[in-house]
């Protein structure tokens, strides 16, 4: 589904954020990307739907080359859902309108259909009663669930999560993770940048560990948590698992 081949990316002339990254996410697979801050994991996931350009290598999404200038990027992006660290709901639109906007403007759905679809997804994330509210009237956890529903409303073939729980208060993390776990169990293809190792342990098929722009470890979940092969991954794990 997602193929990342020898991807290189620089910020400016000298600073290389991604160094020869190669990995893939198969259909229905859940891949967790972790690593210390500044390791390039958020950058990598943003390259998948070309929010960030790459300077070397190739990324293919469902057979379509992302970094080909001829690719219709808006169309390609509309098929991949993305969830951000800071939710990024559109503050001037009511919750239901947040879910309707891209359905109508990008997919060309009729207003009634978009509303029906939106309400169904809001019900799924347990926020049907909040449809008429504005984003600022919801808690962080609720906003992130709306953001997930907004992405799902586009009927995506895969979902990208960029640290979806990092900006949340601890008691709100689980309500977001619950939605994500359900999604994973339904067979959604997911690439998730997160530090939630419990989530990784529960639903991930593979875990990728990044450090300084490189993919240091790319292993099956059991192997990663069992015996990570690199020193750096071991150190990282011992630090975040000790509490």
């Amino acid at each position, binding site marked *: 589904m997602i193929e990342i081949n020898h991807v290189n990316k620089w910020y400016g002339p000298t600073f290389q954020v991604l160094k020869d990254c190669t990995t893939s996410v198969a259909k229905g697979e859940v891949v967790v990307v972790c690593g210390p801050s500044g390791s390039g994991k958020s950058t990598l996931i943003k390259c998948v739907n070309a929010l960030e350009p790459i300077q070397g290598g190739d990324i293919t999404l469902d057979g379509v080359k992302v970094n080909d200038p001829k690719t219709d990027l*808006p*169309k390609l992006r509309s098929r991949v859902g*993305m969830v951000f660290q800071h939710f990024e709901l559109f*503050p001037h639109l009511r919750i239901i309108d947040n879910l309707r*906007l891209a359905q109508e403007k990008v997919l060309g759905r009729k207003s009634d259909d978009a509303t029906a679809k939106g309400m169904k997804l809001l019900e799924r994330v347990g926020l049907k009663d909040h449809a008429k509210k504005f*984003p*600022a*009237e919801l808690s962080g956890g609720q906003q992130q669930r709306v953001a997930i529903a907004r992405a799902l409303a586009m009927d995506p073939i895969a979902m990208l999560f960029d640290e979806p729980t990092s900006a949340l208060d601890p008691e709100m993390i689980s309500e977001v993770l619950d939605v994500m776990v359900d999604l994973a169990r339904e067979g959604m293809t997911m690439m998730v940048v997160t530090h939630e190792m419990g989530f990784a342990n529960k639903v991930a098929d593979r875990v990728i560990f990044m450090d300084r722009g490189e993919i240091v470890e790319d292993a099956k979940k059991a192997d990663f948590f069992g015996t990570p092969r690199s020193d750096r991954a071991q150190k990282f794990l011992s630090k975040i698992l000790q509490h």
Partner: protein
Amino acid sequence: MNYNWNWHIFLEPNPMGTGTYLDLLLSGLVVTVKVSVLAWIIALVTGSVIGVLRTLPSRTASWIGFCWVEFFRNMPLLVQLFLWFFVLPELLPRTAGLWLKQLPNAPFWTAAIGVGLFMSARVAVQLQAGITSLPRGQKQASTALGLTTVQTYRYVLLPMAFRIILPPLTSEFLNTIKNSAVAITIGLIELTGQARSMQEFSFQVFEAFTAATVLYLLLNFVVVTAMRFLERYVAIPGYITGK
């Protein structure tokens, strides 16, 4: 000081035969309103386009925006009006220049366009500030949903940016009204112009300009009140300036 105060002067007939002196001032007020509203529309429309250009990643776009803003804000308004009114017709080919000079109401149109373009540079900078004050993730979220750049600006960035800059835009609207008085120098008989002609006909200089002052104050008070209502109308519940 030997000055004969005469507050009844406003009810005396003016020598133009167009009614009283008050009518004279009010006809000036009408011209001020017309030229200011037209100038403000020009400023808002062109200023918005230029403001958006300044935020695009394209170098050409931001270069055009830069040139526009620096050209119109770095020259005194008076000089700009002289330029459009006296110099431009001479620079054009003979027939075009003649056509321009013979335009009916030339001072009116020159003032509206001249003040409008001068103010457009200020609107552009305000809007640019409004757009760049939005979290970067807003554009990314919109792009990730498959919206095109035009749609992103139309449905996501501009609705928020304009809400944020509404208070400073109110000031710019007031500035437009006040700047329209400069048009007296190219022969537009607006409110300040009529106050001067009243002074010349009646020698009641203090009454004339007191009345003009009051009329400007009233006009600006109407604008401030209207903008305050607009601010309240578009406020987003729970968000910064929300109700």
